[in-house]
């Protein structure tokens, strides 16, 4: 599904963000990406969503090398990838409904079809009653869940999350993680970058650890099995 082959990314000035990273994420798999800030987690997600391009190596999604994707095709690739951000990146002067509907509007949906899909996505994150609210009136956890609803509203096969619980307290973080688990159980591949080891160690999923741009661990970590 998602394959990294010896991927490196260095920035002008010589900073190496990723150093020959390889891994494969299967279809319907959920995995965590962890490491200190600056270890290269965000860079990896940016390479997948084509915000950045690798300096060396290949990023392949579903058999298609992203190097073959031209500038004009980038938007179409992003429609297949649901993205969730630490700062949730909602449009603050639009209602929750409009925010979640944005990917659908971009793809040309309108009317009842669109409303049905938006309501379904909001229902999945438990925020159906907040559809008319402005994001500013939501709590941090709610705003993050609106961001998740927006990412999944057009049912992408791959979900990326960059520090989705970064600004949340432990209880809300667990709620958000449960939402991700639910999507994963419906067959979506999920890759979550998080430095909250205490939280993710308690869940029985694959963990990839980055340090200074290198993959230092891939798989279940010690102690995870016994929980």
């Amino acid at each position, binding site marked *: 599904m998602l394959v990294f082959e010896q991927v490196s990314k260095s920035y002008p000035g010589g900073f190496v963000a990723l150093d020959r990273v390889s891994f494969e994420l299967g279809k319907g798999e959920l995995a965590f990406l962890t490491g200190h800030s600056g270890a290269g987690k965000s860079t990896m997600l940016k390479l997948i969503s084509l915000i950045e391009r690798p300096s060396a190596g290949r990023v392949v*999604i579903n058999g298609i090398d992203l190097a073959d994707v031209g500038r004009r095709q980038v*938007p*179409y690739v992003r*429609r297949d990838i649901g993205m969730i951000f630490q700062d949730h*990146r909602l449009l603050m002067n639009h209602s929750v409904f409009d925010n979640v509907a944005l*990917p*659908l509007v*971009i793809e040309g949906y309108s009317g009842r079809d669109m409303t049905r899909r938006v309501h379904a996505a909001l229902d999945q994150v438990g925020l159906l009653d907040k559809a008319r609210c402005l994001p500013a009136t939501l709590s941090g956890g709610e705003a993050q869940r609106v961001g998740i609803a927006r990412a999944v509203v057009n049912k992408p096969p791959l979900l990326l999350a960059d520090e989705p619980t970064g600004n949340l307290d432990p209880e809300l973080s667990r709620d958000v993680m449960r939402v991700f688990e639910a999507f994963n159980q419906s067959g979506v591949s999920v890759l979550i970058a998080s430095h909250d080891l205490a939280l993710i160690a308690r869940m029985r999923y694959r963990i990839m650890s980055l340090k200074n741009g290198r993959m230092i661990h891939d798989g279940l970590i010690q102690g995870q099995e016994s929980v």
Partner: protein
Amino acid sequence: MSLLFSGRQSGAADSAPGVLQQLLMWLLSHLRQAVFSLGELWRTPVWTLVTVVVLGISMTLPATLHVLVKNLQEVSEHYDQSFEVSLFLQSGINQTDIATLVTLLQSDPEIEKVRLIDRNAAMAEFRQASGFGEAIALLEENPLPDVLLVTPKNNSPLAAEALQGRLQKEKFVELAKLDISWLERLAALTALAQQLVYGIALLLLCGALLVIGNTIRLMIMDKKAEIEVMKLVGATDSFIQRPFLYTGLWLGLFGGFIAFATVELLLYWLSSGIARVTELYQSSFSLHVLSLKEIGWLMLAGMLLGWSGSYLAVRSHIRAIEP
């Protein structure tokens, strides 16, 4: 259709049954964006007004000049149709010879009409109209010649000139005179004015283009965060730029309307002055205002201007914003 995952249904177009339905959806989405852009303008009324007024003024001057040139051309064309060759006859010619000449000229295929101004009648009129009555009474004999006014059939200045050359050689004719040099000068001046109008219009429209471009650029900068998010969830550049292009279109349309209103007001204001001038010239001249077609062109020009100004801004700035 999905790029990465063949077979995955994506986009409303995939689920629409027919071509007609897809076209309808496309039209509907454009209409919605147009209305949305209008609403956005309404939210910043002062800014919009300033831009629209600047646009309107830049279009008013060329439009007004165009109307003036149009009227000038009307005037010169009006005179084109009344070329006359004046034949001053030799003094001492007798009435029979004049009558023969008139008959001869009347049968000429190139001549429309011949009118005789008898020297005695001319004298009487001159005495009455000039105010030199007493001075003229002192003259021993009438110094005025008999004059034939010849109207050519062909109205072009060239044909009139050829006729004048021919009539000059006619027997009994002292002098054949065709006064078209002032008409030629007027035509040349009109052409110059027209050229000037085009030059000024071009400069002003360039200015207007930049004003719109700058307005749209500020709007884009204002929505930078929003555009980034849209790009992140898969919006194409053309989708993002569409509302801005519609905004330019609206600004242009309103600008065109302001230009139209200003021109009409200006002409209304000038009309009494023009009426006084034409009255003095005893002419039946009436001022031509903008025709319906010209108003249409003005609006269209405004919209085109707004769209292109917006396009210039959108092309460079939306591309530059990347998440």
